[in-house]
């Protein structure tokens, strides 16, 4: 069975402008729209396309968090994943580390345990989550697993026991060849995720969604990066409006910027 494992994180929807709680203790999340992390949606789309091309037999999605993550896993199943795993952290005594949730290294250990259980030939994750913007979990999993990583992928081609990956790096586009199994993290231009159709949402309700506990995977949730305070970023001072190019040029010259 050629299996692809995809990580799904439940995050505040990318259109929401988040607010810090007045006492600085966290982010106000009551009633805020939650979604699949956009990079994870791209990861799932890539896995589904690989399966549809016949290069994989099964797509398994996994999320780590509380029971609310079932919503995002059901959406993933509706997109086309075959089955879902929820690693429930509720029994671990709430989100360790306050509002920051599980640390990436702990997440990577959870994913490693899932890898050992599921034996995937590819693990596809988002390059970062748009809430904590850590951008750590993929390479950490690859290190613990002692397998290759291809981060920021904008193209993945499978060729037998290898994958040829185009990566979006600061210099331009880099091409790497990695042996499988390997960890991939997605960049924006890897693909455009499909929309979920209504009948698929109904079908997804019958697909398997298993819940596992952190302790059953032998992972402890130590927290070593603790949030002390949350605050909004410094605001920029209100600017001026100019009426035409001449005024703009004059303003730039006056400020000594050109």
């Amino acid at each position, binding site marked *: 069975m050629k299996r692809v494992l995809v990580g799904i994180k439940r995050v505040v929807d990318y259109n929401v402008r988040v607010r810090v709680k007045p006492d600085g203790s966290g982010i106000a999340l009551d009633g805020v729209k939650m979604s699949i992390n956009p990079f994870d949606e791209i990861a799932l789309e890539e896995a589904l396309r690989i399966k549809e091309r016949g290069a994989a037999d099964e797509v398994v999605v996994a999320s780590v968090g509380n029971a609310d993550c079932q919503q995002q896993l059901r959406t993933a199943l509706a997109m086309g994943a075959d089955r879902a795993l929820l690693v429930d952290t509720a029994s671990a005594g709430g989100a360790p580390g306050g509002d920051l949730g599980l640390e990436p290294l702990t997440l990577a250990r959870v994913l490693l345990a899932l890898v050992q259980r599921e034996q995937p030939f590819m693990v596809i994750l988002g390059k970062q989550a748009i809430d904590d913007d850590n951008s750590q979990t993929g390479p950490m999993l690859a290190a613990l697993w002692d397998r290759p990583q291809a981060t920021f992928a904008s193209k993945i081609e499978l060729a037998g026991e290898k994958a040829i990956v185009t990566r979006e790096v600061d210099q331009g586009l880099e091409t790497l060849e990695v042996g499988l199994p390997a960890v991939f993290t997605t960049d924006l231009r890897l693909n455009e995720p499909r929309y979920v159709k209504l009948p698929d949402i109904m079908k997804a309700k019958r697909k398997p969604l298993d819940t596992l506990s952190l302790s059953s995977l032998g992972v402890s949730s130590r927290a070593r990066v603790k949030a002390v305070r949350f605050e909004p970023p410094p605001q920029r001072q209100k600017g001026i409006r*100019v009426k035409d190019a001449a005024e703009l040029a004059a303003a*730039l010259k006056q400020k000594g910027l050109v």
Partner: protein
Amino acid sequence: MAGALVVAEHDGTTLSPSTSRCVTCASAIAGAQVTVAVCAADAGAVAAQAAELKGVETVLKVEQAANAHPIAAVLAPQLAQLAQLAGGYSHVLGPSTTFGRDLMPRLAALLDAPQVSDIMAVESPTRFKRPIYAGNVVVTVDVVDAPIIVGTVRTASYAGAPGGGSARIESASVGTAAAAHTRFVSVSASKTDRPDLQSARRVISGGRALGSAEGFQLLYRLADKLGAAVGASRAAVDAGYVPNEMQVGQTGKIIAPELYIAVGISGAIQHLTGIKDAKTIVAINKDAEAPIFEVADIGLVGDLFEIVPQLEKLLS
């Protein structure tokens, strides 16, 4: 003894400005002696440049044929050995560029160390500030129970370290074989004579409103008059007007130029997070309600196809 190890970013011949900014961040860790590690096939030229940075005490050359290209799976085991050598380091820092974001978490996992990403301020050796939610929130974090802290440095938050230093250069030998499972094939970078986007003093960026790759020619002409780098919004990159390395924003480059001119960019929060540290932001957009005007120091509502050529003449 506290020591901060900075992992140098370079292309084999030239040290990246991101490293000099990491040195400034490392120097802000009280009591930390700063060492720069240069992993390369031949580290001589880059090590000499690193040794000139003020605040650097030692430069370590880590030379292996396999280090010719920056492959995380190859570099991380070597750096993990280095970080745990006698004396040891309390901090290991790299830039929050694609190089550092690829490498540092792999290194952190090998060290079983927690990582603090995108450090924007060092409050104490164990307390840092970093942006989350696309820069809409700043969180202060304490790191506990960690002999080694790994961090990526938000380079836009730091100025480069001045030159004039004279650090010791030493060779470090770490016995690590190459990772056979990863092979570098190629890197394609568009050649440009314009300044580097991440360190340019002036940047002009364009959005989807430019309409085409040809539309960007307007910006290139103005940029060349001003000696500016050219960037783009995600929309312009997605539309194929310009290559990915020009993208500015949460998932592209985070920059801090003295002057940023946003042309035909509406100003999604994901873009704004990439330009928050610009000293002066100028916005040119035909939509007076565009969110970019909320952060602009100077705003001009109008047709970019008229304004940009006029500006080019006026600033000649």
